[in-house]
């Protein structure tokens, strides 16, 4: 790769369609490789901290276990897909926001509220015919997510309050709201802990193996739909225009306020599908302390996927594999599963410091700027 720069004629991977993909994907791929190396170093250091001696084979053992846990068997593979499902939806949610110059870090609140709504409606319709029960619970989740995403959108559109702060506040408020809902109106009697009722007919059907539920299909379908919306529809063009240059978009007759609210609602809706399908297909009931880091994970997915739906799908599969394999890694190599969070953050670090990555791997700078670099321009009440 290193002598490519001096050759007059570009090698095949820098020409044509392949070259375009290479130009976009080179830095993310390089960042993943570097992050895995850094994590290997961290594993070595932590083995020294815990045992007092350095086991040089430990990173290999750990990554071997990780691969085995993610791809080693059919059930491992299905588990990877299952783990990737909410990440695809969340990544799309954050990515759509990025395209409009909006940073939705309120995914957690939107996810939790949607999960609670789906669990509540699902339990209420437990004995209804399955198609009705499932559709209604999914819709409830989508609506709840979209509504919780609409609020910061409206706040930004009409007052200019930056969504980075408002969505975080709404995350904490959502945690209280779902606590009140689950221990109050939605509380199911007869359990030793606070939870929503059994789902009955509202449970998403299993379509593959023993854990791949219908929600996986929704996530897979969402990828081309969002791609079409962003790159082939008028609305998507407007969303991208507002993100790239708000004032130009306004002069061209687009409606920034509507677009901000629409995009945030759409983002919330996608997080809502993630929340609803996780409950209806995986957990089957909701508790007040339901733990999720989907908000942050989705940001990582969207950044690694360059906010492009297909890139997001690939990034979600990678992180899904890491999460699916981490359990086995903890068992076989004694590395806490939280190393996945460290790897995730390190990838982002290299993505941000892309100048360093480019220098290391001799990757040329891209033409133009990425939409992510326009984020800060709208900070603190100077919305477009």
């Amino acid at each position, binding site marked *: 790769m290193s002598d490519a720069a001096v050759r007059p004629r570009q090698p095949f991977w820098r020409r044509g369609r392949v070259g375009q993909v290479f130009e976009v994907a080179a830095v993310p791929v390089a960042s993943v490789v570097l992050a895995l190396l850094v994590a290997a170093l961290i594993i070595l250091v932590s083995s020294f901290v815990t045992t007092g001696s350095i086991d040089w084979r430990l990173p290999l053992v750990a990554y071997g276990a990780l691969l085995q846990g993610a791809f080693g068997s059919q059930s491992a593979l299905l588990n990877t897909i299952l783990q990737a499902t909410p990440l695809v939806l969340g990544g799309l949610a954050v990515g759509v926001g990025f395209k409009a110059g909006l940073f939705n*870090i309120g995914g957690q609140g939107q996810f939790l509220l949607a999960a609670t709504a789906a669990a509540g409606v699902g339990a209420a319709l437990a004995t209804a015919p399955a198609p009705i029960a499932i559709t209604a619970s999914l819709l409830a989740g989508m609506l709840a997510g979209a509504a919780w995403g609409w609020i910061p959108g409206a706040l930004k559109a009409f007052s200019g309050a930056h969504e*980075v702060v408002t969505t975080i506040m709404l995350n904490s*408020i959502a945690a209280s709201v779902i606590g009140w809902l689950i221990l109050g109106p939605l509380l199911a009697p007869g359990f030793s802990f606070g939870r929503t009722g059994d789902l009955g007919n509202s449970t998403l059907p299993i379509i593959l193996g023993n854990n791949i539920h219908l929600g996986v299909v929704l996530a897979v379908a969402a990828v081309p739909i969002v791609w079409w919306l962003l790159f082939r529809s008028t609305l998507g063009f407007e969303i991208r225009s507002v993100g790239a240059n708000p004032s130009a978009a306004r002069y061209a007759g687009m409606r920034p306020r509507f677009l901000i609210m629409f995009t945030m609602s759409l983002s919330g809706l996608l997080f809502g599908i993630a929340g609803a399908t996780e409950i209806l297909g995986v957990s089957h009931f909701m508790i007040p302390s339901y733990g999720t880091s989907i908000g942050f994970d989705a940001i990582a997915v969207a950044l690694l996927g360059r906010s492009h739906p297909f890139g997001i799908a690939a990034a979600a599969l990678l992180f899904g594999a890491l999460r699916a394999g981490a359990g086995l890694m903890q068992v076989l190599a004694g590395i806490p599963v939280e190393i996945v969070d460290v790897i995730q953050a390190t990838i982002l670090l290299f993505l*941000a410091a892309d100048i360093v990555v480019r220098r290391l791997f001799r990757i040329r700078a891209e033409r133009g700027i990425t939409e992510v670099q326009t984020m800060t321009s709208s900070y603190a*009440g100077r919305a477009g």
Partner: protein
Amino acid sequence: MDQLSTFLDSIPVLGVVFQLIGYLTATVPVIAPVFVAAAAPVALGALCGIMNERSGVVNIGIEGMMLSSAFTAFLVAALVAQAIGTGTPSPIFGATVPILVGLGAAILTGMLVSALHAWLSISIRADQIISGTIINILAFGLTSYLNRLIISPNPRLGAGIFQPLGLPSFLVDIPLIGWLFRGFLAHGPIAISVLILVAFLQIWLFRSRWGLRTRAVGEHPKAAETVGIDVIKLRYRNVILGGIFAGLAGAYLTLELSGSFQNNMTGGRGFIALAAVIFGRWTPLGAFGAALLFYSAEALRVAISLSPPVGDLGNVVRAIPPEFYGALPYALTLVVLVAAVGRSVPPAAVGKPYARETRA
């Protein structure tokens, strides 16, 4: 007087408001320390934000800086305590060597993480909000990982906490204003330092050469460079110095408030600090006031749990679910932020990376 208040309290609906006012005036002196204790880390985080944003750098990563400092404060203090023992606590604040070393480690961590943010946003010119977000994710991931690796297997790890200042009783018993002393001074050293730091930074920012230069760099870096101010250097210095405040905020959580470390224990305080910066119009005093306002909800919760109100007000309070109080600081922040934004103007160059020799 009593008749008047009884009359006012008995007015339907509106009477509850008067009862609330009466209740608050009765309880505020008692719960005043809660205000300051809850607001201290947010105020410190806000000072970090002001240092950054006044020099033109957006800092979304305050949360992560606080979290990583809280972690190293606890871990270093605990490890030192394990190695050399805690020794005898000093008569003031109950300070011990391990706690002081932990405090130093927290400040150093805050500065180091800030240096990373400075490098990413000033030298690399990455999007500053993305840079801050990465710091948050990195801090969350690393502290959870190390927590599981080192702290969780050793439940006896710990170094204790700073003790609040014991005030002489004649000061506290002064009628009408005695509770103010208790409210603001009956705390550990970090919470008390907030008062000093706020005043200090307020004066420094608006009455010193450094302050003038900092504000110039945040408003119009090109002009500042023209008169010979090194924009890049000053931004680096201010962002890294701002890390001291985030470090103190983190140390406050583990070495003064709780004495233990939990994953994600900052719980959004870094973001509330950002809102405090905006609502306080990028001034230290204003941000401190905003932090106190945001946590008045927390103080109210404590008041109600300590001495439940009676009468109509009591009935109203009992009808409110407990989750409401948990959400109140955040809801209050949200409302206040929406009202403040637009009316408070940020430094003009905030968020824009500075490059020499280019057109602005």
